[in-house]
């Protein structure tokens, strides 16, 4: 297999459409309709509780950081605030973008807009980008959200632990959108009717950033930027740490989420920040199930899935050697064993796309 072309406009994108890898039927574990309806059931209560806690903590940490400004004692509060701003908002963007976090639509939309702003992700562009990620998960040339391409650009991933490339790219796109332009790749997945909304959102953001910068100049302090903007750098590490584990080192160009997605059991703090997206195979197989029901979904279908990684550390012990090996051999990937109770991998769905499995 030749070098991969991850561009949405390249040869692999065309190949995926021609071979039927794009917009294909995917494998799903069988779950009785009655049980699935119960799992999909929406509720406002868990997300209201978590959102009050999230914003309450953000106000508290930022308030303590401001009160202690000028002293090193403020540092831990800014670091905690940063993780909520630059990482917890990633999962809020995700869940509210799906519309599953709250039962009430406007609550999803409101938190979604705030989260998009914090993560510097245009609310229109990224809604459509993520729809494509679910249509064509880790299909080369079709999925715009592949974190670890092959060969993996480890420097890029490390820089993004500090938000450097993602945030700078987000602000660059914001200015581009505010001027009424979309990136060429983005035009492949955003309908024309949605483009004005993307431009308007970017223009509102520019106004907010200008106001923040003016305030910083007037005060002669970076403090306003510690509240808005900079946490996207110093708080990004947690969402990159968990996000890298979602698909990295696993198969590309397959039509069975058990082959290209990873479930990792995590500590309760990370699960709050990540809003249970550690159950990632489950989420991709059944995106209708809200975050608070994913542990139950995991229990329901785990007989049909590879065993989950037992911790973030254990998952990295699995992933890092694969990524390092992919630097030399980009066709290498990890194919995990299924339990005896599982149905076999649906390799017939994507047979031609498979490379060299790990042993």
């Amino acid at each position: 297999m030749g070098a991969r072309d991850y561009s949405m406009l390249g040869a692999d994108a065309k190949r995926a459409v021609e071979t039927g890898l794009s917009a294909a039927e995917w494998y799903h574990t069988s779950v009785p309709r009655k049980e699935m309806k119960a799992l999909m059931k929406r509720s406002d209560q868990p997300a209201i509780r978590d959102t009050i806690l999230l914003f309450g903590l953000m106000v508290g940490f930022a308030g303590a950081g401001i009160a202690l400004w000028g002293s090193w004692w403020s540092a831990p509060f800014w670091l905690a605030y940063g993780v909520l701003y630059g990482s917890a908002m990633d999962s809020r963007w995700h869940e509210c973008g799906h519309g599953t976090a709250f039962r009430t639509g406007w609550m999803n939309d409101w938190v979604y807009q705030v989260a998009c702003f914090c993560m510097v992700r245009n609310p229109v562009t990224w809604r459509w980008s993520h729809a494509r990620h679910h249509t064509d998960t880790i299909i080369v040339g079709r999925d715009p959200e592949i974190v670890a391409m092959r060969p993996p650009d480890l420097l890029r991933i490390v820089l993004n632990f500090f938000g450097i490339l993602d945030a700078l790219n987000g602000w660059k796109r914001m200015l581009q959108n505010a001027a009424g332009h979309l990136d060429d790749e983005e035009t492949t997945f955003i309908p024309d009717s949605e483009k004005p909304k993307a431009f308007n959102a970017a223009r509102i953001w520019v106004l907010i950033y200008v106001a923040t910068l003016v305030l910083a100049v007037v005060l002669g302090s970076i403090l306003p930027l510690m509240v808005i903007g900079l946490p996207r750098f110093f708080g990004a590490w947690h969402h990159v740490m968990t996000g890298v584990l979602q698909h990295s080192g696993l198969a590309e160009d397959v039509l069975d989420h058990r082959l290209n997605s990873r479930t990792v059991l995590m500590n309760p703090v990370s699960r709050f920040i990540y809003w249970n997206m550690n159950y990632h195979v489950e989420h991709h197989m059944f995106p209708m199930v809200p975050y608070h029901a994913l542990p139950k979904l995991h229990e329901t279908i785990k007989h049909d899935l590879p065993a989950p990684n037992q911790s973030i550390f254990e998952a990295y012990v699995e992933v890092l050697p694969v990524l390092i090996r992919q630097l030399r051999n980009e066709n290498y990937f990890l194919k995990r064993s299924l339990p005896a109770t599982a149905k076999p991998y649906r390799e017939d769905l994507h047979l031609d796309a498979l490379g060299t499995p790990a042993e």
Partner: protein
Amino acid sequence: MNQWIDACAKGDIEEEDLIRFDHGDRTFAIYRSPDDEFFCTDGLCTHEEVHLEDGLVMDHTIECPKHNGQFDYRTGKALRAPVCDNLQTYPVKVEGDRVLIQI
């Protein structure tokens, strides 16, 4: 001329749920609302033609199982991205225990 087709029994659909109904080379979704009314739409989502049969009925909306786009199944109106185009709806009547759709 449109004709009435016997699609299913009332009891085939749980309250606030839907079933798939195939007829010839066409596929439909038939809904039972929380207030015990019946409705019919095309079966495939207008976004990427995923069948709605595995979707979630909440009040008077159907949510697509793939990308969470929503429609009002009474009118077919697209309510939430990524769906932009409305869903075709069809007349429904109930005769005794049977649900009939006009297609």
